[in-house]
């Protein structure tokens, strides 16, 4: 896979992995919306949900595919941007080409890097902590991830970090979802119109959905 030179094939891989990650975002959001329940209820439900996921073999397999997707997607991104740099050669001294396209479509790599850095922090603070850390248990005997999450979002800087990362993800998806379908070869004008609308709505909904959670936790704890 590392040795594929053809950029059309490379981009297909990027599109498939990107779309799989996007699909995961829906499931991940739905699960995390449980954090918005009243505190006592949310604690028990969220912890038992996390426990359930942790013990399920199917979820485990899917999670390995997810890690692989993030890896392949990032490797592809890096490979293609090196290739692009070689293709560009010397740059323009006076460049106004930006008028013809959106800023986020031109900066997918920068947005991706923000997402990646965020993912590292996100994994370390919750995933690693949950899996390998010493956690208190709740009244049901499940590891109390809920409290870890809630305590984390008491800090303003943490909330800001999340919002920045989610906005980056939102713009990444705003271009990415529709771009992926083009890459995979959907050329009919009508389907393209539909995908454009659905893809953009998806990006907006995901962004709003994910932003609500840290904001809600932060302001809920303040009051």
């Amino acid at each position: 896979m590392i040795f594929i030179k053809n950029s059309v094939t490379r981009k297909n891989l990027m599109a498939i992995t990107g779309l799989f990650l996007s699909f995961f975002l829906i499931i991940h959001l739905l699960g995390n919306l449980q954090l918005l329940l009243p505190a006592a209820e949310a604690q028990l439900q969220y912890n038992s949900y996390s426990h359930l996921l942790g013990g399920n073999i199917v979820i485990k397999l899917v999670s390995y595919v997810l890690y692989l997707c993030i890896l392949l997607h990032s490797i592809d991104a890096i490979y293609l941007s090196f290739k692009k740099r070689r293709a560009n050669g010397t740059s323009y001294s006076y460049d106004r080409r930006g008028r013809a396209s959106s800023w986020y479509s031109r900066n997918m790599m920068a947005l991706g890097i923000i997402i990646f850095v965020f993912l590292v922090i996100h994994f370390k603070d919750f995933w690693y902590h949950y899996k390998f850390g010493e956690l208190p248990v709740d009244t049901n005997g499940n590891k109390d991830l809920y409290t870890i999450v809630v305590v984390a979002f008491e800090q303003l800087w943490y909330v800001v970090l999340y919002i920045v990362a989610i906005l980056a993800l939102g713009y990444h998806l705003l271009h990415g979802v529709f771009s992926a379908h083009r890459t995979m070869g959907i050329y009919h004008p009508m389907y393209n119109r539909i995908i454009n609308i659905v893809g953009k709505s998806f990006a907006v909904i995901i962004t709003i959905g994910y932003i609500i959670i840290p904001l809600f936790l932060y302001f809920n704890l303040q009051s």
Partner: protein
Amino acid sequence: MKITLKIWRQRDCQSKGEFKEYHLDKVSKDMSFLEMLDTLNIKLIKQGDLPVEFDHDCREGICGQCGVMINGIAHGPLKNTTTCQLHMRSFNDGDTIYVEPFKASAFPIVRDLKVNRSALDHIITSGGYVSVDTGQAPEANSIPVTFEQAEAAFDAAACIGCGACVASCKNSSAALFTSAKISHLAQLPQGDKETSTRVVSMVNQMEEEGFGHCTNTEACEVECPEGISVLNIARMNYEYNRSRLMKK
């Protein structure tokens, strides 16, 4: 009108280039951009300087020979026009205009504003044709082609190969150019027969020439003098994937 020009001067692809400043006093609004450059060149020759090299041929927007970056945009500010069809009325008295050659690794600079776009020809040579036996002209109506089909194929065939798509692309991708030809031939019964082999060899040639990949920013369609649709790129991807997956 009075115009200040900052023109990219470069001896050849090895040497370093730079903007040189020139002033023109009596520019008419009705001059085309190339006529304005001609005026400058006459002045330069009279002074004993080397004229500015630039490509052109038909000067009526159909050959695709002309093409420079004007104020940082391929073929200048006016959309869907070639450099030769751009007129000085698109500018104002006293303007400073930056003129630079198209830049991409696959387009080495020959001199000043002139670049070598043979890479595009190599892509066409690799498969942008229909293999038919020559001989008597076939009966025109023996292969029915609907009006819609013919129009759609012609929309893609309108590409003049100027290279503005490559110049406008942040990745220097030739996807729009290559896909226009693939799409043109794939939509006609005479061309469709060879689509699977054509798409693979043309995409491979495009890669070999050192063009970048497509990230669907769609800047190429916006700046294309012929307004070639980016959906052709999606069609190329479709045909490429189909050909690879079906091993046709």
